[in-house]
């Protein structure tokens, strides 16, 4: 079923009454068919990115531009573990499942926030993650939840009581493999990828049997010697070539392809140490969901030296492309370019910069960049955190626009060093220098900081960009004073919901970018909001700092 057809079906279902729909689905198991048609039951948020298309778009329309100002806080859940909270909940028939670091899970009443059960995973003490002990969420199939862990295990939990059903190692924690992403369920498989791109791992994506965790297929994101693509590596470089996978992929039922973004090569900042294009790092790969076989790939940044992980969410849509209905994939990349690809073939259709870029002078007809590396001590744009990053974008079929958060006017100066691989040890080959392109200004760190924005817009600013995928040009843009890691969710009432480091939770008109409402939540908003309904009432949940706040219309 095409996305358009699914949309129509969902509207038809909604016409029958949201309340009735909610009741009829209660107590039903989450079958793979329900996941396949997740957008047709908008009262739920069944998968990490809402549905297989990862559009972060909801058909719920109870909250509108006209009444969004009547939103009020209904309940709050506090994170009980200190540290940045990057989780994105799923909502299943009135139950919300939330993770908190390192690998705890909670089941709460999505209407009140009251907790049904908690699960606390006891992971290996020697787990290593470069960038925070994050977990971004769980997946569900049947009555079972699935979670990847920081020590690179895959755990199955009973969704009714939080008890572990099985626990299998996915990779060797001593080599600094980890899992921070939410798994993706495709039919009868649980698919995950591994982190560890700063530790010289050899990344992979793998599918497991949901019944017992047995591995079904595995795709290495860095080919071994002799395999297709291995000619983009020299010698044994591939063995520590990185290619981590730490953001959940997408799935196209029409082609049975699952799409995943691949992270940086190793060592991160010394491309001279690993000559060649370094496939499939900084690429998107299209895998047969049944076999894991590579069908196509597109590399955004060959021989990357700026940590431009391509771990953004692959957003799928069927749009009119130059007069023809086309199955596309839209991708705002960390390297500062916005891309449109034909997702059936991987063909490059469009690529335009959306922020200041100087690592390349442009793309050729196939989308390959002409690299223009900057000299020692000179800033590279976009900077280390990229023009955008892992936080989910959104696509609204109603507006035809692709929405994402960007870091503008932001550059980094790098050190490049020879790195020696030691198993499980850091393998970065340099990094951002302390000095910034702006004299006297501090650099921007990942994650939370004190309440003072002491880098100011002199170092960089955030933006919400509404990109027209047909032209590669923004239809509108809203600037934020501070940079932002907030994901975006849009709805069929043309609302755009997002936040930022400043802690404002904001609703914009998705067609114009006009600010409709905001609330100061007092903590950095990362990830994207989710929206759902219980007993016919629509809610919106967003994580800010150490709180998950759920809003609903005033009664």
């Amino acid at each position: 079923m095409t996305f358009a057809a699914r949309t129509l079906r969902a509207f038809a279902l909604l016409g029958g009454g949201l309340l009735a729909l909610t009741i009829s689905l209660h107590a039903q198991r989450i079958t793979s068919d329900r996941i396949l048609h997740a957008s047709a039951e908008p009262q739920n948020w069944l998968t990490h990115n809402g549905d297989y298309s990862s559009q972060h778009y909801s058909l719920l329309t109870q909250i509108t531009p006209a009444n969004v100002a009547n939103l009020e806080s209904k309940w709050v859940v506090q994170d009980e573990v200190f540290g940045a909270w990057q989780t994105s909940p799923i909502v299943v028939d009135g139950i919300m499942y939330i993770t908190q670091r390192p690998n705890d899970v909670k089941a709460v009443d999505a209407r009140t926030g009251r907790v049904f059960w908690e699960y606390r995973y006891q992971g290996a003490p020697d787990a290593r993650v470069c960038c925070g002990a994050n977990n971004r969420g769980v997946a569900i199939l049947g009555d079972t939840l699935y979670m990847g862990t920081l020590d690179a295990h895959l755990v199955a939990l009973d969704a009714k009581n939080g008890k572990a059903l099985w626990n299998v190692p996915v990779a060797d924690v001593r080599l600094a493999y980890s899992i921070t992403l939410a798994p993706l369920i495709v039919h009868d498989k649980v698919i995950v990828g591994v982190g560890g791109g700063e530790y010289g791992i050899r990344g992979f994506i793998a599918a497991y049997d949901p019944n017992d965790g047995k591995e079904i297929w595995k795709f290495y994101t860095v080919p071994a010697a002799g395999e297709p693509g291995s000619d983009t590596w020299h010698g044994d470089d591939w063995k520590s070539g990185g290619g981590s996978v730490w953001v959940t992929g997408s799935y196209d039922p029409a082609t049975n392809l699952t799409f995943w973004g691949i992270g940086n090569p190793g060592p991160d900042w010394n491309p001279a140490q690993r000559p060649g294009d370094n496939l499939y790092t900084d690429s998107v790969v299209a895998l047969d969901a049944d076999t894991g076989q590579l069908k196509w790939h597109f590399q955004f940044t060959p021989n990357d030296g700026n940590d431009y992980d391509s771990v953004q969410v692959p957003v799928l849509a069927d749009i009119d492309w130059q007069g023809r209905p086309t199955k596309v994939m839209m991708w705002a990349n960390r390297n500062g370019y916005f891309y449109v690809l034909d997702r059936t073939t991987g063909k490059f259709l469009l690529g335009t910069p959306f922020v200041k870029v100087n690592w390349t002078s442009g793309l050729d007809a196939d989308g390959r960049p002409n690299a223009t590396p900057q000299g020692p001590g000179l800033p590279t744009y976009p900077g280390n955190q990229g023009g955008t990053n892992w936080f989910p974008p959104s696509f609204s079929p109603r507006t035809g626009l692709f929405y994402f958060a960007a870091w503008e006017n932001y550059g980094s100066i790098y050190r490049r060093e020879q790195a020696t691989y030691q198993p499980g040890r850091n393998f970065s080959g340099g990094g951002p220098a302390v000095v910034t392109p702006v004299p006297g200004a501090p650099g921007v760190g990942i994650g939370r900081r004190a309440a003072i924005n002491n880098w100011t817009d002199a170092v960089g600013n955030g933006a919400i960009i509404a990109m027209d995928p047909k032209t590669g040009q923004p239809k509108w843009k809203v600037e934020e004073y501070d940079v932002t890691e907030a994901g975006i969710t849009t709805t069929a009432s043309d609302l755009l919901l997002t936040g930022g480091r400043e802690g404002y939770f904001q609703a914009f008109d998705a067609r114009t970018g006009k600010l409709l409402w905001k609330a100061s939540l007092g903590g950095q908003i990362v990830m994207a909001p989710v929206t759902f309904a219980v007993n016919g009432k629509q809610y919106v949940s967003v994580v800010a700092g150490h709180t998950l706040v759920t809003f609903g219309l005033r009664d």
Partner: protein
Amino acid sequence: MSVWFINIGMNRCLWIAPPLVAAVVVFAGQPLAVGAQTDHSYTSQDIQLGAGLYTAQCATCHGATGDTVAGVNLRRGQFRKPMSDDDIRQTITRGVPDAGMPPFTFQPSELTGLVAYIRAGFDVANVPVWIGDAVRGRALFEGKGQCGACHRVAGKGPRTAPDLSDIGSQRNPQQLARSLTDPSSQMMPINRPVEIVMKDGKTIKGRRLNEDTYTVQIIDDQERLLSLDKSDIRTLDVSKTSTMPAASKTLTPDEVADLLGYLVTLKGQL
């Protein structure tokens, strides 16, 4: 006058320049024995090693400039409680579970490098600067230098320019030296002077304390804390030029060194 060349990157004058100092020297107003520093005599190789490790392992949470965890500023040596070098090593290896910091596994030499880098104020350059006499420096601060006309120290003086009570902890001597010779170069972007014209025509001058998409917080020239909605503001001009004259224009090099000698003693302790 007695002056010493010190390695400010290390902030460890006592071992870097032993030929220049006697067995006992005066630093920060307190006599210190040379031997007291021998346990922490880091090399430039240590700092270089620490710089690489820091960027790879620590900067993601602590930030490139070490100030992104609340209450901690590694570059400036600020912690939630007093930390010896051994305390830092222990914190790295044990982690801070309550704060979400995991334990890290490092070789002893790597730990030494990290501590060296932190203690060096993230400065791998090791450029020596000239530190003069703190007592004379204080007299210059309050007198000829006219610093006290705008800056406040330990509850004395106006608040319109940044309070310098703990500037010796906030900035290393090299940065302070640059502040005295080229004030604009060291002015934090957030601290820039602002001139705001409100939509009702009122003009407000002051110094910016914080800013976001919708609001700006300042201390005005009447020392009032103001939080203004940008929707009420007609123009917001932020100057990149410090209003402070370069001390090197009005003071002799010896006097600048003395003034610096005073500033490095300002650690904020009351």
